């Protein structure tokens, strides 16, 4: 096998995940998560729910996210979820999930399609009301949705009080990061 001397870079182009602190806000690139979308095929909703239950993959209801022991997931659309797993052990996440679901679900590798930024701050609504239509004051931990940030379709997943993840298209990672930084400076 060829000896490739290539090393991976983060969505923002660094060797290690970039992090910035602006007042009370910390914005951090997160690269240790593997992603795959899981779509139940027509009429297989019950089978997929049973398999996921056995495999320890939470399948939350609409507008929500859930964390299991190894796997986490957030809702994308009816009968469709994004499954998250630790990158170190689940880099080839589709190959790991496919034997469980077989022909009941369609799985698509999504890991490198997205740039994930985790934002922590005591008052996140003040920052995100400048960024998107998602009303953080009306939603608590465990809520997840897709919305528009800086003209980009992004997922916002509330992990815990004062901690959320923004997943945006990786090819626009720098624009999204800039928008987050600008909103943080503006809010605090």
């Amino acid at each position, binding site marked *: 096998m060829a000896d490739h001397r290539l090393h991976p870079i983060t969505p923002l182009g660094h060797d290690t995940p970039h992090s910035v602190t602006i007042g009370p806000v910390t914005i951090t690139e997160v690269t240790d998560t593997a992603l795959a979308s899981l779509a139940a095929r027509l009429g297989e909703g019950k089978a997929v729910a049973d398999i996921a239950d056995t495999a320890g993959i939470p399948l939350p209801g*609409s507008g929500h996210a859930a964390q299991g022991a190894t796997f986490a997931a957030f809702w994308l659309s009816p009968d469709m979820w994004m499954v998250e797993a630790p990158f170190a052990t689940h880099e080839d996440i589709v190959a790991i999930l496919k034997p469980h679901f077989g022909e009941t679900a369609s799985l698509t590798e999504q890991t490198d399609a997205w740039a994930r930024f985790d934002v922590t701050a005591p008052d996140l609504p003040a920052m995100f009301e400048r960024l998107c239509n998602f009303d953080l004051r009306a939603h608590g931990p465990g809520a997840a949705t*897709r919305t528009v940030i800086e003209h980009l379709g992004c997922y916002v997943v509330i992990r815990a009080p004062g901690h959320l993840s923004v997943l945006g298209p990786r090819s626009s990672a720098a624009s999204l990061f800039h928008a987050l930084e600008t909103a943080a400076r503006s809010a605090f």
Partner: protein
Amino acid sequence: MIINHPLLGPRDAQEFTYLGDAALIDRPDGMAFPDATAAQDAFHDYLYLRDNPAGEHRELWFHEQGDRSWLVVTRNTVTHEITKVEFARDVARSRGRSK
């Protein structure tokens, strides 16, 4: 304008794109007509003829910047009041369309 999504609750119309009259769901079956001319006429009407009511109108909206579901929204074109929002797939299935 706010569209009350059946699953996600009230969402800004900014997140949606508009297609038009929900009658688009009722596409004629081209093979079910006695001859080609009748089928062509039916498809002509389906493609080009639309009611343009001043009042209640059922229309297709796509939640593009959300969960990407197609919705049938009943909207008053005079007042913009939205009285009903349904999933288009439920509407289609209730009419025997789409397995």
